[in-house]
């Protein structure tokens, strides 16, 4: 069986051009998309995540790896439709009302996508009603909420209360993150999990689905 370590390495080093070239080579060699995704690409994302945790990589490295992963996935997606290769779960992600910060949220979204989740990114400054509507519409496995400001983090509780009032709370797991958020705060507002960074967010999402 052919092996494609260059695909893994291109994503690990965040080299988009090399990742695209390696993916094309692998396709030409008859590789199965599911094999490439599971054995090389997701592995590379896990490896860059581990380096980040160890302080050997930084946020830009995560982003570059996610960008390379996305470039490869775009080539593979048409081949994966109807192939039985399924996503790891569906996630709706949003920054709560009153908060325009989206870089951290987008990093988490990219990492989750890179690691095989289907992600619906609602954007920033999202009201509780808009988030409830999105949960109702998309039926995600997980709702991920982000806030950067101490003055807006309380809106996460508003969203959770609105989901409860709408009878949707038990249908979705809720994970929260953002610089002012803590494990204790997550518990206090009734979230199912908290992650301190994008890498932890992937591990948390995997544990929640």
């Amino acid at each position, binding site marked *: 069986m052919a092996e494609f370590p260059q695909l893994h390495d291109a994503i690990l080093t965040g080299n988009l051009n090399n990742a695209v070239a390696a993916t094309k080579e692998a396709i030409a060699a008859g590789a199965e998309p599911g094999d490439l995704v599971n054995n090389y690409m997701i592995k590379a994302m896990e490896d860059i995540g581990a380096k980040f945790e160890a302080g050997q990589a930084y946020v*830009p490295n995560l982003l570059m790896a996610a*960008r390379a992963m996305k470039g490869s996935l775009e080539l593979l997606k048409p081949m994966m439709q109807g192939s039985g290769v399924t996503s790891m779960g569906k996630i709706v992600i949003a920054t709560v009302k009153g908060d*325009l910060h989206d870089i951290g949220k987008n990093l988490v979204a990219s990492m989750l996508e890179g690691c095989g989740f289907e992600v619906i990114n609602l954007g920033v400054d999202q009201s509780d009603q808009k988030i409830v509507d999105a949960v109702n519409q998309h039926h995600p496995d997980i709702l991920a909420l982000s806030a950067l400001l*101490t003055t*807006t983090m309380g809106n996460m509780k508003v969203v959770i209360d609105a989901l409860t009032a709408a009878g949707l709370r038990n249908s979705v797991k809720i994970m929260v993150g953002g610089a002012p958020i803590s494990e204790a705060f997550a518990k206090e507002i009734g979230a199912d999990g908290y992650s301190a960074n994008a890498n932890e967010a992937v591990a948390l999402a995997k544990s929640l689905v």
Partner: protein
Amino acid sequence: MDFRRMTMSDISLDLYEIYRSMGYPDPDFPPEDMKSIVEGLLERFAPICHPQFHYIESTVDGLSPKGIIMKGLSGAEKYILFIATAGLEFQEEINKISEEGDIVKVYAADLIGSEIAEATVRECAKAIEADYPDQGVSNSYSPGYCGWVLSDQREIFSRFKGATCGVTLNDSCLMYPIKSVSGIISVGAEVQKREYGCAICGRKDCYKNRLKIKKK
């Protein structure tokens, strides 16, 4: 009162701050790939961006900055309210970059925009200091930080009577262009540039304090 519309060459960007925000352990020597992205973006922004600021003399009546901010403003004989922005042209360009879909460039452009806004505030502070050469001038403090409620933005903006450098508020009191800063500065013989807000604010749940703790 002063209004100034500038070019990128009128402000001094702290590139170190941009790379430090990315988490690089030695921001003086960023990796070549990221340096090239940042430099490319700066070249893209330079000919089109017009950072601007406007400040007016006002009062704190009707505003509710918390004790920690009032301490920073203490000794005030005058209060200056300001709005500073990286400008609509910057916002339009970063919107285009977002549409291009390169998440690394969007990330770098966002940090550059934050630094443009901060550099514009520094120019604003310099102009205020020049207006009051014999007075002490405080640091600047903004709604949304140190526990100052964001809803005070409405009151601040109303005092500019429409001359807000093109900055508008949405229904959550957030500014557009996004890379904008509003706030207050005090002026007076007894006013001192005290330690900046983050140095004196003990909120453990604020991300700036967390970064501080992490560094230690």
